[in-house]
């Protein structure tokens, strides 16, 4: 049979692509865990003082933070994998250190790329949105935005961002 050619490739962690009017950085993997239940207690236990961020809120430059997904669920982002999986009397934790790939887009065209990938939401308690057709967690950096996309989608989303940048 005629199999099609699949030319798109997943981005290599830690590399930066130069697109038209912006750069796309595939951030190196750190620590991440899905955390559900009593989020305040979980945070106090795992990363005291770490902020719980909603849609497109700015990540702290250093230190852990959590991206809220739902009423009772968030992705805790840390410098390194945590352990402590399972049930903790009121909250649950699952390691998701490599489940998401963080794509950092910065530069003059970053806003246009964002506009081409998601609805123009102003604010939301949940950082999870449809982004380039898939679900992703959106936060802001000092210079642009960061989309945490499921690892299996990263190849096609990077390809899509490249297409947008080429034609914007």
């Amino acid at each position, binding site marked *: *049979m005629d199999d*099609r050619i699949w030319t798109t490739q997943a981005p290599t962690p830690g590399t930066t692509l130069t697109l038209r009017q912006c750069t796309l950085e595939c951030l190196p993997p750190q620590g991440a865990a899905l955390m559900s239940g009593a989020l305040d207690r979980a945070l106090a236990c795992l990363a005291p003082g770490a902020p719980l961020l909603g849609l497109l809120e700015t990540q702290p430059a250093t230190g852990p933070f959590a991206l809220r997904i739902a009423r009772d669920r968030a992705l805790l982002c840390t410098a390194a994998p945590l352990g402590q999986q399972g049930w903790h009397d009121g909250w649950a934790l699952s390691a998701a250190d490599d489940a998401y790939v963080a794509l950092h887009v910065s530069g003059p065209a970053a806003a246009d790329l964002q506009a081409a990938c998601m609805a123009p939401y102003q604010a939301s308690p949940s950082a999870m949105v449809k982004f380039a057709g898939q679900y992703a967690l959106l936060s802001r950096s000092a210079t642009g935005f960061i989309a945490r996309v499921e690892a299996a989608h990263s190849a096609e989303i990077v390809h899509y961002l490249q297409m947008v940048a080429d034609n914007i």
Partner: protein
Amino acid sequence: MTRYSALSLLSQGVRGHRGWRPAWAKTHRPKPAYDAVIVGGGGHGLATAYYLAKTHGLSRVAVLEKGWIGGGNTGRNTTAVRSNYFYPESVALYDLALRLYEGLSKELNYNIMLSQRGMLIAAHTPAQMEICARIANAMQLNGVDGHLMTAAEAKARIPLLNQTRDARFALMGGVWQGRAGVARHDAVAWGYARAASALGVDIIENCTVTGIETQAGAVCGVQTNLGPIRTGRLGLAAAGATPGLAAMVGASLPIHTYALQAFVSEPVKPMLDTVLLYLGTGTYVSQSDKGELVFGGGLDRVPTHGQRGNLPAQETVVSGLLEMFPAFAQLKLLRQWAGVVDVVPDSSPVIGPLGPKGMFVNCGWGTGGFKAIPAGGWLLAHLLATGTHHTISRPFDIDRFTTGRLIDEAAGSGIAH
């Protein structure tokens, strides 16, 4: 009724066409009573009236239409007719429709422009090809023309198909039905209306049913904006409005209503000679006699009774079309519209008695009602005239949801209607 023919056209041409009579008589006030009343002046309702008068000899029949005839899904579809189904029950139903369609222009003396140019359901993976083989075999066993087409055959027939190596979906072949095709949707409604009217059926437009009267568990009439009408036999053929009508007698149906969009491009000279459904994209397309591409795809995913489409489904359908035919990106979208389709869990229609004695429904056709119009009318007429099912409609009774004997084509074949 002036007979339509090349000759009458010529003779009327000489006389300035002054002799043409109204295609169907306009009844502005309903009579107080009818032998049978049909709610819904779409293809199914008008066909029902025609067959009641023609086959069953009922002379006092009324069709009540809340707007103008043929204005619902009959005039809002992509006009495909086919019987490429999986289950024997479905094949019996849809092939009855197709066989009636094949003689309909002559029967009604109204050219419905049935164009049996063939239809391909195109497959892209070995798994889809296996399902296509399952369907083609089912069709052959059920006595319908089904052919398992190779990629080479399909490419020869549809040369504009995307054959580049970076096409999202490579073409492997598919199921072909040569007798499938398209017909002129408005003509089906008008043709049935004209023929029914000639047999004495009253077609009453702008007539809204506001209530259903019963007595001792049997239908005895309807209330309308034009006054009450007495009848002991009531047929509902109102697609998405059927749940609301059923609710008047406390009956429920297994129906959710969705908007289904259809699209038309600017016209171009002939370049696509078949009806095509692509399993990969879910988009289907044909080219009308006028030269326009007529295409569609999946439902708008929000249940609704509003005849409007939204962007997400439009973008999906259009990108699907361009993925199938990259050259079509030269064309522009000219029109777009939406119909409200009555979707049943097993995607098969509901035909049979419902609620009080003497009331029958013909609904739940979902996205595929147009191709079934002659059969839907024929079977509902049988029910209204005899009070009992025809063997072809029996499996489609609403009792299948209680017995569990669903006729789930999508499930059985992996291919939606």
